């Protein structure tokens, strides 16, 4: 009996170790991450760029959110914006930040600008967390994990410059990368956890059980893109919509790991998140979730034909 137990645990640990190594450390193509870099970079440019409209109104002298006043609400976080207050300082630093995110988006010095873009974005968020919403955690997550991967391999100025130079490093950079696998897996796991949290938290109150959850989103008059309040005449449709959202958020974190179910889950995600964007007007949140979902798309669907013969289009998706 003792031998059987120890044998079982030996096989268990061996299988777990092998699975862990395959899951996290099998080198993979970074084409998907390169495409995600362009998209999430564009979203970060939008979020950072639109903040410039109200930069002085929020953070300037006599701004609505003075650092000293709101410090108790910020907690122990770092933002270089906490040390700036004059309009000149704020504009100069934020324009440099915008340039850094744009360089990351186009893939110029991608390794360096990926870290800069993350620092700039997090500084925006930490300066005044009360003006952020559900979009920012998704974008921060994507920017952070893209720092770990060679995400400038495709669709990038780096790639174009290397090709022009006939750089030998280009070929090496095109090889499957363990960093790409780790970044992709971290995005996948993080997204699954986040969606699970959204579903789980809905079950802690009565609203989503009773079928009225969507109504409380639909009926908010100020932010919606499309007015669905006429659905009050067909409450069963609202019930169905509510239950569909919860069902999706509870099933996505599990079934998205099943290859056969993955395309259905990703398509359903697009429908659900688009519907939420129409109802709430929070388009950036839906876009961020759609970009994050791309981590489950195989690089072979993204990659363009590469010049190197025999190149593997392998991916963790």
């Amino acid at each position: 009996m003792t031998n059987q137990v120890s044998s079982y645990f030996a096989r268990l640990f061996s299988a777990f170790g092998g699975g862990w190594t395959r899951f996290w450390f099998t080198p993979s193509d970074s084409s998907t991450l390169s495409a995600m870099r362009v998209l999430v970079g564009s979203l970060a440019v939008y979020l950072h760029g639109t903040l410039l409209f109200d930069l002085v109104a929020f953070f300037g002298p006599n701004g609505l959110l003075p650092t000293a006043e709101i410090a108790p609400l910020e907690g122990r976080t770092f933002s270089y914006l906490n040390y700036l207050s004059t309009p000149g300082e704020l504009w100069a630093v934020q324009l440099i930040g915008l340039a850094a995110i744009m360089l990351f988006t186009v893939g110029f010095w991608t390794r360096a600008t990926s870290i800069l873009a993350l620092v700039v974005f997090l500084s925006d968020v930490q300066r005044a967390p009360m003006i952020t919403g559900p979009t920012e955690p998704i974008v921060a997550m994507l920017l952070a994990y893209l720092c770990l991967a060679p995400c400038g391999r495709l669709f990038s100025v780096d790639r174009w410059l290397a090709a022009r130079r006939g750089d030998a490093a280009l070929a090496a950079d095109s090889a499957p990368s363990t960093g790409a696998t780790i970044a992709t897996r971290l995005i996948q796991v993080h997204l699954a956890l986040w969606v699970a949290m959204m579903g789980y938290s809905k079950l802690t109150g009565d609203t989503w059980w009773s079928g009225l959850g969507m109504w409380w989103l639909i009926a908010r008059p100020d932010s919606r893109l499309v007015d669905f309040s006429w659905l009050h005449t067909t409450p069963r449709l609202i019930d169905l919509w509510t239950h569909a959202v919860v069902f999706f958020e509870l099933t996505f974190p599990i079934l998205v790991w099943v290859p056969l179910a993955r395309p259905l889950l990703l398509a359903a995600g697009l429908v659900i998140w688009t519907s939420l964007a129409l109802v709430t007007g929070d388009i950036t949140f839906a876009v961020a979730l759609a970009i994050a979902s791309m981590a489950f798309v195989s690089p072979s669907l993204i990659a363009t034909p590469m010049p190197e013969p025999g190149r593997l289009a392998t991916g963790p998706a």
Partner: protein
Amino acid sequence: MSLDKPSPGPSPTWSPETRSLVSLLIFVHLFALFVGVTTYARPSDLQLRLHDLFDPYLRNLHFTAHQVSYPVARYYLTHALPTDVDFTCQVDFSGPDGALQQVTIPPTGLQPPIRARRYQAIANAAGTMVDPEGNEDIASILPKALAGAVLKQHGAAQGNIRVRANYIPQIEDMGEVAAGRRTPPTNDVYEAKVFVTGNSVELLKKANKLEVAPVQPGAAPASPRVPSPQPVKP
């Protein structure tokens, strides 16, 4: 989105020692992440203590969903509770010419829409921090900052700030709301006088209005099913 069985693919290229070290880092990161995400709704004491342990890491990377400093439902898409409503902040003051002026947050007509969302988020943060049994100092931080900024910008020495909750009509009442026979209820959850002296801003809060029934003048009586105006607890 490969539907086929995963191919064997290339073998791991990192040494076992490197893989072990990175595995440890991944494990710790995922554990911290799990704690940061699961403390969003009804965390246990154990979860809160673990969150404190990872707090600097989670907060600085913006990875946590837990509201560490203040109970503001920034992730309302995960809730949509009846109490998860929009607020407006109104600052009234007399201008230099003596005329009464009013500044409302969020202002209307901002483009692109995300700018309006940011102002709305500030107003919602101010509104949801008003809790009759909560920390009065925390509740007054944003009203004081907002009113002080508005008064300074307009050169006024004193004024009033009012934080108003704009409740959402019940689904059963929507027919009457759409026909104009009923107005969605509102309630002033916070009101204070504000004084500006130089750079100093002082706030004198009026009586807490949270207990007042959310009825608007001229509107039909609110439905008894209208949610009680309690602040959102994420």
